[in-house]
């Protein structure tokens, strides 16, 4: 049965919905203008903290490639190495890693600054100092391999976190990628 729908019955609901949307958008724009700066600051700060933690000798950084390659300088403005941000596909999502490499091409620090998609208690333990410390002292000349996968007798190997091979492989992959970027680009920039 078709009911006769008067134009009024369509216009009034539409207008009120439109008004509500308008007000909500205005409130959101207002809140955004208040919080946007603080949010950007927070994001920049956590990345900064990560960079300083992997290259402790650095007092400041200069951006070579946005979001990827940063050159570190000590307080006398002498170059001390690079902080490189890379990512790899982990178990539940991406894993973001910051690698610090000094001027001699040696890894001095690794920070897993995003691994919230990994399993808590397992893959998430790749953020633990005991796991990350394994990369310190390795060079950028050869790939690093997870000991479980070391079938070719590669020289540089690290042990995976127990029951978190996939997450460990992801971090290793990201570190190797950082080494690759170092070999390709950082050397040119010197």
């Amino acid at each position, binding site marked *: 049965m078709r009911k006769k729908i008067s134009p009024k019955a369509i216009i009034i609901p539409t207008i009120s919905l439109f008004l509500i949307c308008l007000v909500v958008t205005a409130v959101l724009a207002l*809140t955004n203008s208040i919080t946007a700066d603080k949010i950007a600051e927070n994001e920049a700060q956590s990345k900064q903290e990560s960079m300083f933690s992997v290259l402790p000798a650095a007092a400041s950084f200069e951006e070579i490639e946005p979001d990827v390659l940063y050159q570190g300088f000590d307080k006398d403005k002498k170059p001390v190495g690079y902080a490189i941000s890379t990512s790899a596909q982990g178990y*539940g999502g991406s894993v973001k890693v910051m690698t610090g490499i000094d001027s001699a091409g040696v890894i001095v620090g690794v920070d897993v600054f995003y691994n919230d998609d990994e399993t808590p208690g397992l893959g998430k333990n790749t953020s633990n100092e005991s796991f990350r410390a394994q990369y310190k002292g390795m060079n950028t000349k050869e790939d690093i391999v997870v000991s479980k996968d070391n079938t070719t007798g590669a020289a540089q190997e690290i042990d995976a976190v127990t029951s978190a091979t996939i997450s460990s492989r992801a971090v290793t992959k990201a570190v190797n990628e950082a080494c690759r970027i170092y070999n390709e680009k950082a050397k040119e920039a010197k």
Partner: protein
Amino acid sequence: MLIKSLIAVFLAAILTENYVLSKFLGICPFLGVSKKLNTAVGMSVAVTFVMVLATAVTFPIYMYILVPSGMEYLQTVLFILIIAGLVQLVEIVLKKYIPALYKSLGIYLPLITTNCAVLGVTMLVLQKVGPDYTYIHALVNAFGAGIGFLVAMVMFAGVRGRLENADIPKSLKGLPITLVAASLTSLSFLGFAGFVEKLIPLS
């Protein structure tokens, strides 16, 4: 290479990143509608359809309208309204042009608006955008998410069918035993860890 990455995305969405059993999205319909096999399938097909359609619409809107204008904060409001609108539209179109389909699927459509899996997939695919992840990956991901929902629902409908005939203690009857069954189903999916990477090595 593209095909490989698409298949990897598809399989991951069903097995290792199952929206219901791993990500805990879409639990209400999962617990509520999985009692009978045909309602389970009907709901899942409707969900898959809306997921793909919603992603198809919201992805470009986010990437080409919200981001360039710096209005990413409108994402939640805009997406949920788009989904609600799409669901209404689909309902109207089905009712008018494919009444038979409407009869079998249409009844689930209003429920889909508040299905957190649908809003979830539209937002989660945007977090994955990168050099290896584009519009087509997002669509395949959404499709996979829906199929993953279907697989979980169908499996669970089977489990619940068996529960009907089992002798269950009084206090566990109804939701508690359903949740325990869900916990076991979810446990079985944990076994798929690493399966997709081994099957489709991308590097």
